[in-house]
């Protein structure tokens, strides 16, 4: 969440309505159709936002940390290393809490579509909103240039509000940790207190 006071929090009711919108959509187009919809939704959102350029990697990381970048428009990002980013809170946490409080337990389709995404795309989603989040960050990173380089986003792990953690296994995880410059233990520590851990690197 940006420090700029003009960027106020959303009303969770709007998020609840959007979740219901997705549930209704899933009833019509199925889990695969919803997945495609969420992906295109996030790509459209990123495409609607202005491109960015930075002279150096440190300037870019500073902008992400200070909520001046497209990547930190909707969430507070804390760099752990030069390449490894962590998100303190999920931007969907308020909406989820309000949904649980006022409506009841989350409809199963939100987990089902995440499982579909984990199987078909990459194993880092716990619920439907992670599909939006990962795709948005990926598309947003592609709109940034640091010097002559493009920027690539890759998720390392996601922890949902209820504590459920989703992360790749085996060599894939080891490779991500090495590129991010953190250990498995450090990842565990981050997931205890943060919602997402991700990687940004120059291409």
């Amino acid at each position, binding site marked *: 969440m940006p420090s*700029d006071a*003009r*960027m*106020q*929090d*959303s*009303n969770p*009711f*709007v*998020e*609840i*309505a*959007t*979740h*219901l*919108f997705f*549930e*209704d959509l899933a009833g019509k187009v199925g889990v695969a159709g919803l997945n495609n*919809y969420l992906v*295109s*939704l*996030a790509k*459209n*959102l990123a495409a*609607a*936002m*202005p491109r960015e350029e930075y002279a150096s990697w440190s300037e870019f990381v500073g902008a992400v940390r200070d909520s001046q970048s497209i990547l930190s*428009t*909707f*969430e507070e990002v804390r760099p752990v290393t030069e390449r490894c980013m962590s998100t303190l809170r999920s*931007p*969907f946490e308020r*909406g989820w809490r*309000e949904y649980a409080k*006022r*409506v*009841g337990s989350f409809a199963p389709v939100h987990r089902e579509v995440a499982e579909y995404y984990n199987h078909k795309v990459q194993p880092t989603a716990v619920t439907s*909103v992670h599909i*939006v*989040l990962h795709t*948005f960050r990926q598309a947003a990173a592609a709109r940034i240039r640091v010097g002559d380089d493009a920027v690539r986003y890759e998720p390392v792990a996601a922890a949902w509000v209820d504590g459920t953690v989703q992360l790749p296994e085996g060599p894939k995880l080891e490779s991500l940790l090495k590129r991010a410059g953190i250990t498995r233990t450090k990842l565990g520590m981050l997931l205890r207190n943060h919602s997402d851990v991700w990687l940004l690197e120059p291409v």
Partner: protein
Amino acid sequence: MIDVALASLIEDMIEKAGAEGVVEFWQRVGDNLAGRMGKEAYLGWTSFNVAVREARTAFSIEGEVTPLTDMAITDVDGDVVGYLYAMRQCCYIPTIFRTRFAVGRMSPADQAVTEEYNENVHNIAVCNFCVFHERFREEIAKNVTVAGNPLACFLLATRGWSGETKISSKNVVQVNINEDHVRALLRNYECVYALVLRGARLKEER
């Protein structure tokens, strides 16, 4: 974030189903959400209004609602059969500002859905979200009883983020509230509605 993305979702829906389709879609979502909120029962208006003030009712999901207990609605016998309720801030205003500072401007899809609704359903919407929550309130009102009677909801007035106002002549007449009183409320509130006992015989003149 998902609220800001909603604008592009609606843009996409308009391409697929037209603004009319989005209106129907939003109304169905309003029905679905109301159906999942469950029933509520209150002994009388006092306990209901306290519950509204303490954000315990299904209506509170929209945000802070103020019961205007000085503006009672009476029936032909002079008995209180309802009250006006108001929200200082429209649920969608934060999203409009977030879109302004994240993307740059609101999608024209918002206006397209609003106009479709105003022309063909009820001339009261100031943003696309009005479509959803007018239906939502109407449906949850049926599930709330006060002294054993289910409620009916009438959306009376709205004020959009750029200052435009809408007053529902149809609903203002229905609940016998003077339009000037409602207009005055819009100085301080962005959404005003009435909750009355379903089937109450309202006064013809106030």
